[in-house]
């Protein structure tokens, strides 16, 4: 398998002024990320977990150079994007390869018409008109928003807006799409729409998906889960492996998916359900089987 993203001893810190002293504002060095070594293979479906301020969004913003790391290297598709002599064209090539969908659907749509917004990325790439048209149609079709191509974005629901934002990234033909808490502001229905599209893009278009989230149910659907706490990468494995470290997750303020939590509680009460189930259906079945057996 080909490595699409590789980070080596990646560090990022920023200055913050302390609030309590207005006269001599002390500069505090905040270490957002410390020595992150992460390798993501092409076609992977990865979830990044961590509570607020853990550094997970910072990591995402480093991968397409919206932020620049102080130390360490990032390799995208084999190319070192942290080298000092990176040209502007190379920078924009990185941003084309690593697309990003943000949290607030309202604050990432630029144009007043859906299809013109989807065209924004390809327009910036300087593609010929016919190619832009082809990509816009393809992208809107993939996210199931073709019938809304002439609509105004502000009349769409949150989930629909987020799908348009995904189409906008998709139209640039990225290799990786990073979802930076893209479902956080959506209702359950919108959330499902977006996660379904993530999986569809991963399976059908073999795009590498990185979903940064604090919904455990979403993370459980990914092939691989990594956990970041206080700027350090502390867990890395399949969803089932990661969520089996119950106490460790609890100690850093994270939980397992609700079904899993219920089984853990039942086990504590002495039920001894032996399963690594994560999603609702599997958990229901495991509990049901145990109850029948009693």
């Amino acid at each position, binding site marked *: 398998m080909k490595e699409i993203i590789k980070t080596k001893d990646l560090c990022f810190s920023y200055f913050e002024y302390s609030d309590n002293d207005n006269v001599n504002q002390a500069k505090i060095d905040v270490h957002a990320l410390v020595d992150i070594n992460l390798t993501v293979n092409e076609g992977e479906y990865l979830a990044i977990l961590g509570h607020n301020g853990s550094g997970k969004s910072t990591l995402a913003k480093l991968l397409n150079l919206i932020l620049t790391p102080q130390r360490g290297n990032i390799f995208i598709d084999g190319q070192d994007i942290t080298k000092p002599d990176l040209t502007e064209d190379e920078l924009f090539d990185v941003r084309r390869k690593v697309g990003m969908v943000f949290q607030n659907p*309202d604050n990432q749509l630029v144009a007043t018409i859906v299809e013109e917004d989807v065209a924004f990325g390809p*327009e910036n*790439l300087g593609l010929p008109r016919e190619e*832009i048209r082809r990509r816009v149609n393809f992208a809107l079709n993939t996210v199931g928003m073709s019938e809304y191509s002439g609509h105004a974005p502000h009349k769409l629901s949150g989930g629909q807006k987020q799908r348009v934002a995904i189409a906008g990234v998709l139209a640039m033909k990225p290799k990786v799409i990073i979802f930076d808490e893209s479902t956080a502001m959506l209702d359950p229905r919108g959330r499902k729409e977006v996660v379904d599209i993530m999986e569809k893009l991963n399976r059908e278009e073999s795009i590498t998906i990185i979903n940064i989230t604090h919904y455990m149910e979403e993370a459980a659907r990914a092939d691989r889960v990594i956990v970041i706490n206080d700027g350090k990468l502390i867990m890395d494995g399949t969803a089932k492996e990661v969520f089996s470290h119950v106490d460790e997750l609890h100690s850093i303020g994270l939980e397992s998916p609700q079904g899993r939590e219920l089984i853990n509680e039942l086990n504590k009460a002495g039920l001894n359900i032996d399963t690594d189930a994560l999603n609702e259906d599997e958990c229901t079945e495991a509990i049901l089987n145990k109850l029948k057996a009693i």
Partner: protein
Amino acid sequence: MISDITLGQFFPGFSPIHKLDPRTKIILTTLFIIEVFLADTPLLLALMLLTTVIMIGVSRISFAVVLRGIKPIFFIIIFTAFFNIFMTKGQGEPLVHFKIITIYKEGIIRAVFMGLRVIILILGTSILLTYTTSPISLTDGLEILFKPLKKIGIPVHLFSMMMTIALRFIPTLIEETEKIMNAQKSRGADFSQGGLIKRVKALIPILVPLLVSSFKRAEELATAMEARCYRGDKNRTKLVKLTYKPLDFLWFAMAVLLFGGIIALRILPGHISPDSLIYDILFYKV
């Protein structure tokens, strides 16, 4: 609901005016304004009035709606008319002479003339441009028309991008204003009572959070645009290309014809005997 307000008074439709290229409409509007100012005789003014009425008919926007557009400038029309009536000195006997007030026949004619001129100007430009062109295609048209200004260092693309983003965010910000107002109302704020000062003061708790969130939005939007490879108009192409169609050329031809006619009617007076009745009818100078 404040979100019901229409933006730029655009009435969507499929009339021949709606279908015109925005660049055509911008050029024709400019021409129309020049024509109205060249029209200095009743005949020419009548010609412009007729043109305007025909355009309103073609646009399929109801006369009542169009006339409502004059309301905001009604005061200006009355004001100019008022000054023209009392300030114009004419020859011969004044119609009214009462203490310091003297009104001449010429003053009244001039007032009517000026009033009509302003009305035609407003009606014509709004029918040609604001009522029938969506703000976004207007922006596109302006960007292309002003492109030559790039050579002297004016960032035309940036202005048009700012316009587009402003238009995109107006509904979003209106929605947010409503949310904030409702939040304040639910905690007992009162926006509809009290004097002017009290009402303006009541707006502060709305404007401050709105401003703060606008800055936050702007920052997030800038990041999102950067992530989508935006770098100004450098190496940038467009999905939609504006093209002139036969209809545009037809309108251009008609506009040129009208313009030529007006010029002719302005030059002609020198070639007709000033004593004839026709001269008086055609070229009454105001």
